[in-house]
């Protein structure tokens, strides 16, 4: 059975899972669809592994499935890497969905659409022509839109989120389509192979246009600032398995698109392309981490953190392209390796975080941090797993996030001395952006864990929370285990990344040498020993624990009330809230965040000196949405309302329009002819 057959069979199984979701009875609907979907993931995964192992792309043609254009499958090592990434998130998300569904969320729509969504995610990296790609891309967008509505479809926020998502995703898709069309028109064929072949001979203006359109289109899907406004709205509204896939996998496909167009198809470009990518990445990283640090809702925090991580990946990608444009191939490949590793790590970690947040929401009924607390004692496994995943996303050793950040830092560090003015200016600023982002991510996740899981419960829902079913815990545990394993032994993931990079960017050697278990850079001075580091940390922790116990005279701790300055009463309201935790950060960055504060004082009717009630409202909403998008929406709405004057309802007026249009067209034809 060759890889091509596996890909097709996987697609069929995935669609079969969708049908099973509709056809099966209520009790076995979700489980049945899940099993078929796992089969699909497994088959696609095996095909991807085969492609990565051999290094040869798999190409398939079919002119029957799609009329006029035909379907073309081309699974290159780069695409295979992203297929594995999607499968990595999809399998635990499906498992989590089984437990989620048992609590009454097993509607027929969700059970049917979810497998189709996952299948489209798995198949997008295998697309080999424009038509195939766009069909799958649109399928992915539509199914995810339906899934955003399926959870709490009646709520106004869900509908608003869905409409923002729909507009932005369709706008992005339109730009991507235009980019493909321009490229295909100049290349004389719509298959990626043909386009890649002809791309070198195109005029720089055309290449630039294609790149910019692709950057904006794929960037909006990836959640790059300023096209990210749909992300913090849509991701919290979707059910958590869907959010995990959207944040972990779909966003990665946005980055895949940029890499595909920029490196694989167009084969690299001038410096200004990559400076733009670098700038977008830096701004996204900073903006995302800042808003994550100021969010009081767990899922919104995770959504902004996605923008942050995509920004970091774009930083790595921009640096890579910059080095390629200034003729430093080894550094370029290192940068691209960093991009892929960052996206893979992000998929695993964000998937785990969203699934755990979903567990918490199901157990407590809320995702608002100011209503949570004390969950580590009530939900020990979910809490511990969330903690480990949060440590991974902040980049703490010995977990996988650290590997990605180290690679990014090394590529920037060694690029600082290349002697080119653009890189000399860009690299220190990129390092500063990376550093500030890392620090703000720590703030965001210490807040999420500290307020959400530690201390006293702040609401009845949190107080009465119980641990979620085993399937949900297992799903989160799988992803966290991946984080730990990839952090301690990155040699498991790096060869695959290397293979993907080497075939994506021709003419570039390998940048990494996984020397045994160490990570060693080729041709540059840089070594990381993650396994020894993890081992040393484990030994040190055990050693210090033993030492503490042996040196203490009374090693057993006595349980006492917390010290509250002798106060007689200690309640949950005396703890820090999420807003107060982030207040120093908000104060430092209030020019960027621009919090909206509203103070309303109601006086007693009889006298202005006696106050009856005071209401204070403080909100940090997205400054870009408020400053950029809402004015546009207002203008469009005003234009629309002005245009209503054209539709008074009178049939005579409409007939007059028709006659006028006919006269104009005839006159134009007369003038042309």
């Amino acid at each position, binding site marked *: 059975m060759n890889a091509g057959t596996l890909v097709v069979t996987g697609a069929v199984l995935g669609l079969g899972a969708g049908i099973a979701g509709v056809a099966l009875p209520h009790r076995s609907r979700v489980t049945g669809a899940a099993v078929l979907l796992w089969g699909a993931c497994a088959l696609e995964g095996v095909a991807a592994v085969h492609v990565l192992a051999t290094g040869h792309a798999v190409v398939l043609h079919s002119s029957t499935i799609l009329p006029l254009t035909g379907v073309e499958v081309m699974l290159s090592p780069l695409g295979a890497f992203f297929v594995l990434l999607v499968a990595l998130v999809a399998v635990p998300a499906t498992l989590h969905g089984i437990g989620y569904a048992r609590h009454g969320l097993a509607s027929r729509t969700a059970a049917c659409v979810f497998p189709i969504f996952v299948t489209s995610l798995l198949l997008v990296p295998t697309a080999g022509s424009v038509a195939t790609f766009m069909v799958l891309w649109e399928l992915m967008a539509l199914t995810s839109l339906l899934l955003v509505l399926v959870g709490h479809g009646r709520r106004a926020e869900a509908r608003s989120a869905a409409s923002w998502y729909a507009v932005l995703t369709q706008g992005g898709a339109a730009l991507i389509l235009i980019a493909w069309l321009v490229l295909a028109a100049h290349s004389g064929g719509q298959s990626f192979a043909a386009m890649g072949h002809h791309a070198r001979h195109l005029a720089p203006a055309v290449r630039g246009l294609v790149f910019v359109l692709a950057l904006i289109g794929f960037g909006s899907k990836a959640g790059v600032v300023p096209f990210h406004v749909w992300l913090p709205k849509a991701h919290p509204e979707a059910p958590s398995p869907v959010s995990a896939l959207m944040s972990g996998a779909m966003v990665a496909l946005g980055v895949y698109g940029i890499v595909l167009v920029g490196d694989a198809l167009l084969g690299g470009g001038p410096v200004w392309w990559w400076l733009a990518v670098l700038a977008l990445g830096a701004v996204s990283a900073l903006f995302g981490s800042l808003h994550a640090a100021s969010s009081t809702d767990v899922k919104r925090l995770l959504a902004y953190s996605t923008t942050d991580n995509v920004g970091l990946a774009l930083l790595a990608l921009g640096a890579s392209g910059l080095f390629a444009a200034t003729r430093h191939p080894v550094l370029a490949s290192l940068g691209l390796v960093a991009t892929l590793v960052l996206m893979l790590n992000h998929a695993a970690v964000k998937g785990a975080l969203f699934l755990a947040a979903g567990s918490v929401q199901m157990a407590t009924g809320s995702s608002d941090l100011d209503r949570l607390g004390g969950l580590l004692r009530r939900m020990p496994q979910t809490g511990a797993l969330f903690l480990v995943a949060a440590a991974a996303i902040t980049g703490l050793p010995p977990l996988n996030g650290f590997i990605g950040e180290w690679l990014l830092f090394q590529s920037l560090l060694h690029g600082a001395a290349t002697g080119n003015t653009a890189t000399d200016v860009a690299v220190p600023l990129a390092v500063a952006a990376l550093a500030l982002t890392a620090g703000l991510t720590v703030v965001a996740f210490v807040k999420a864990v500290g307020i959400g899981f530690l201390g006293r419960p702040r609401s009845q829902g949190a107080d009465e929370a119980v641990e979620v079913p085993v399937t949900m815990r297992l799903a989160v545990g799988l992803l966290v285990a991946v984080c730990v394993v990839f952090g301690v032994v990155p040699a498991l993931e790096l060869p695959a990344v290397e293979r993907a990079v080497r075939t994506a960017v021709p003419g570039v050697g390998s940048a990494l040498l996984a020397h045994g278990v160490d990570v060693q850079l080729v041709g540059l001075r840089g070594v990381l020993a993650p396994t020894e580091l993890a081992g040393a940390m484990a030994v040190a922790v055990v050693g210090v624990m033993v030492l503490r116990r042996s040196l203490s005279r009374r090693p057993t701790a006595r349980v*006492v*009330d917390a*010290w509250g*300055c*002798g*106060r*007689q009463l200690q309640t949950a309201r005396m703890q820090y809230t999420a807003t107060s935790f982030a207040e120093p950060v908000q104060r430092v960055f209030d020019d960027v965040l621009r919090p909206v504060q509203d103070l309303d004082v109601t006086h007693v009717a009889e006298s202005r000196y006696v106050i009856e009630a005071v209401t204070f409202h403080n909100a940090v909403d997205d400054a870009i949405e408020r400053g950029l998008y809402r004015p546009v929406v207002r203008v469009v709405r005003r234009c629309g309302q002005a245009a209503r004057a054209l539709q008074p309802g009178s049939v005579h007026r409409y007939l007059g329009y028709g006659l006028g249009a006919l006269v104009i067209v005839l006159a134009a034809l007369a003038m042309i002819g």
Partner: protein
Amino acid sequence: MSRALRRFGRVTEPLAPGPPTADGPPELVRSLQLRHVDAGSCNGCELEIVSAFGPVYDAERFGARLVASPRHADGVLVTGPVTQNMAVPLLRTVEATPRPRVVIAVGDCARDCGVFAGGYGVVGAVGDVVEVDTSIPGCPPHPTAIVEALRGITRR
């Protein structure tokens, strides 16, 4: 000459060598961290305590130190008679201190309510609310007396 150089700039009064009568748990020899609690004093004793830990009387050279949290402390220095509002906080502060611990009542008010005995806002002396290990008489006690009492515990 070297002694003059070492003493340059130092204003601390030298005290008699050798510790006074041994008093206090053995773990607290040479190291005593104290948390001060004002249970309702007139602040006269506080001024003397500040002076005792200041440059002239320098209780720190004998291993004593003031800390911010009773969890970090080995003992509680209590001043003033215990008022209605401070009875429970004082009890909680002493309970929050890990054992082995000492409670030192500083001044006449802490020992037997002093001039405030019988007042309507006063619950009693410190000994009526918590168990007192050492008390320092005086209204207010001389800083040297405070330092000698602490030396008795640190045995330096």
